[in-house]
């Protein structure tokens, strides 16, 4: 008899880190946001934020756009479609682990991944 693996194993490891989860949650709620807002919201250093955003970008979860506000350089982040789908799956799995109700209107109905 084979037991089903615990749902925590289905948590996306790229998202399941305190900093990266906070970045993804903020971008999911905000849409597009700039570097300063993220840094101040997460209360972390520039380098730590850059490091984790780079990992998310490399995974195709976050889109990075560099530009200028007047003469001041600025960087904006937004979630890609892949990132949004991954974050939705992550939330569904999390709810399942916590024994909460199934997908809500925030989650796409076809994103249920728990078998």
């Amino acid at each position, binding site marked *: 008899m084979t037991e089903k693996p615990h749902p925590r194993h289905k948590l996306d490891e790229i998202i399941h880190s*305190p900093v990266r989860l906070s970045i993804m949650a903020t971008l999911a709620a905000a849409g597009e946001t700039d570097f300063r*807002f993220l840094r101040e919201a997460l209360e972390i250093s520039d380098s730590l934020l850059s490091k984790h955003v780079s990992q998310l970008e490399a995974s195709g979860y976050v889109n990075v756009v560099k530009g200028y506000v007047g003469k001041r350089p600025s960087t904006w982040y937004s979630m890609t479609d892949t990132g949004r789908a991954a974050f939705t799956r992550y939330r569904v799995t999390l709810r399942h682990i916590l024994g909460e109700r199934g997908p809500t209107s925030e989650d796409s109905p076809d994103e249920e991944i728990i078998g």
Partner: protein
Amino acid sequence: MSVSEESLEPDAAMARIKHAEMLVRSGRRWRAASFAAVGLVTMGYFAVMGGVRYAQSGLLGMVMTLVPTLAVVAMMEILGKRRAVQGRQLLHTEYVLAGAYAGLTCVAGILAVLLPHPMPAALSGVAPGVACFIGSWRAARR
């Protein structure tokens, strides 16, 4: 809630998601409220200004000219202390609205002095007020 590199329990992960959502909502509400407050102050200012001019109150009239400036300074102070989400589209909209507000306030100020009746002078403040309410609506919208 600052973040660290520690491992993450599921309930802590959910709390982190809810905290991020709350932070974004709160920043958005503050920004929207600040724009609305400046709009109300501006419209109230021009409404009173129309009457003050006809009361020939020189000193009060001079003090009144500072009101829109103080309203904008107060808004900048509030926004500086509580940062809100600033995507490129919203940033562009805010720049356009700030320019429109400055221009319309100048025009309204000139009209308030030139117009012969208190009511049109008071109504001249509606346009800059509306610019602020549009800003408030845009800031509140996702």
